[in-house]
């Protein structure tokens, strides 16, 4: 475990500060690095937020609704986990690229990246909310309704609070995935500054120190997400 995971990650950190802290600082605070981080963070937050809402909605429909083909749809949710990300990227180019059958031109622009990230992060929230929703005691909801609570009140006061840990941990995983995504956006992003692509370009251009510096910032964010997950996970387990 430590040989495979920790030593290499330590090497990245060492490389980042190998020419002194000053160099590290200037490679993460120059305007290109800052705008890269801004674009990546902003997009990831937006995608995580949309995923949280749509994922919860989809989970609700899959648990509480009955319709023909539900099992098929349920199996379909895992598709982004099973499908190699490069295939996902290619599919999105096909649909929204220059030869789009709908005349939509999202490829090589930020909107295309957004769609790609929504695709790969879809299952996280659905799959974390679904089991909790199945276990949820419906009697409490019925009690609330019989005491005169409207649907909205029940949703806000009863359902959402019990789902919150699951929604949060699913969203955190989706966010982390977006921050580091490479395969699905590599074909569609072009000049959009997504951190993974910038790091990759730095490596190819023989600038490992710049690549390592940006990586350290991403690593810090990843570790923060990990700690957040642990806290929500523990609360969810209680």
């Amino acid at each position, binding site marked *: 475990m430590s040989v495979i995971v920790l030593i290499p990650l330590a090497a990245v950190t*060492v490389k980042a500060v190998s020419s002194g802290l000053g160099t590290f600082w200037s490679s993460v605070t120059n305007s290109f690095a800052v705008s890269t981080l801004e674009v990546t963070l902003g997009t990831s937050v937006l995608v995580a937020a949309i995923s949280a809402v749509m994922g919860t909605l*989809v989970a609700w429909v899959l648990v509480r609704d009955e319709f023909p083909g539900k099992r098929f749809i349920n199996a379909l949710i895992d598709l982004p986990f099973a499908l190699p990300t490069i295939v996902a990227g290619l599919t999105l180019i096909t649909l929204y690229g220059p030869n789009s059958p709908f005349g939509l031109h999202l490829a090589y622009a930020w909107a295309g990246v957004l769609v790609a990230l929504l695709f790969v992060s*879809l299952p996280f929230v659905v799959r974390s909310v679904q089991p909790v929703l199945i276990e949820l005691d419906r009697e409490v909801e019925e009690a609330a309704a019989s005491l005169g609570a409207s649907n909205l009140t029940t949703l806000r006061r009863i359902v959402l609070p019990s789902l919150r840990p699951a929604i949060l941990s699913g969203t955190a995983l989706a966010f982390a995935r977006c921050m580091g995504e490479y395969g699905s956006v590599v074909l569609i992003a072009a000049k959009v500054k997504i951190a993974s692509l910038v790091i990759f370009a730095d490596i190819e251009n023989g600038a490992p120190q710049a690549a390592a510096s940006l990586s350290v910032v991403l690593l810090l964010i990843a570790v923060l997400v990990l700690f957040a997950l642990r806290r929500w996970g523990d609360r969810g387990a209680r």
Partner: protein
Amino acid sequence: MRVSRRARLSLRGIALLYLLILLLLPVGAVFIRTFEHGFSTAWSWITTPAAVSAFWLSVVIALIAVPLNTIFGVGTALLLARSKVRGRKLLNSLIDLPFVVSPVIVGLALVLVYGQGGWFGSWLLKHGIMIIYAPAGMVIATVFVSLPFVVREVAPVLLEAGDEQEQAAATLGASSWQTFWRVTLPSIRWGVAYGVVLTTARALGEIGAVAVVSSNVAGSTLTLPLLVQQRASQIGAGQITGAYAAATELAVMSLIVLLAMTVLGPRRAR
């Protein structure tokens, strides 16, 4: 919560529309594009020497990475669920690291350790061992990114099952090895199977980490996902059809994985 019929139908509509636009349409489009010039054209793209070698490289990498991660995963899950070792909590957090770290960073890290000028680089060079820009590095990268799946599937099952049966086996005189094979393993088998399926999916589809440590030479260090990327970014007659063909090949493999997930998923929950 009793929802009116109209609200329920509209929620269902929104959910299905979202899934249709995001999932079904794109995947369907790739199948159509693959076969738009006929089945034989698609087949010839899949059977070029580069494509065949990419297919086998992907399979071989998965065949090495998946068993390694399965053994490691079951061992770690046992450690997390059954022992009281110090640092267990830290290990529990660290296990998820590959899920939240960008695969490109994983690749970079491996280059910095095993590559030319890296920590072990000169030693490896002296002994003539190639890791970076060679299949060995691609295997290590794949092991890294697919590390947590088995642990995360097996550990909860172990906790859920408790250790009473194992203790009973021990009192009846079973060795710890016997206990593992006869008691523990049967109780976690669906969890292991599901974890293996997830690991396989990730191993076959990984591109970010592998791309950094691959030399991108067709026929030797090109996996199927890398081949798709290479063909898709090349401009030339039919190259894009080749990309679609290789993508369909991958999609069919992931469809098999998806089927396995659907079959194993509910069993694991029991």
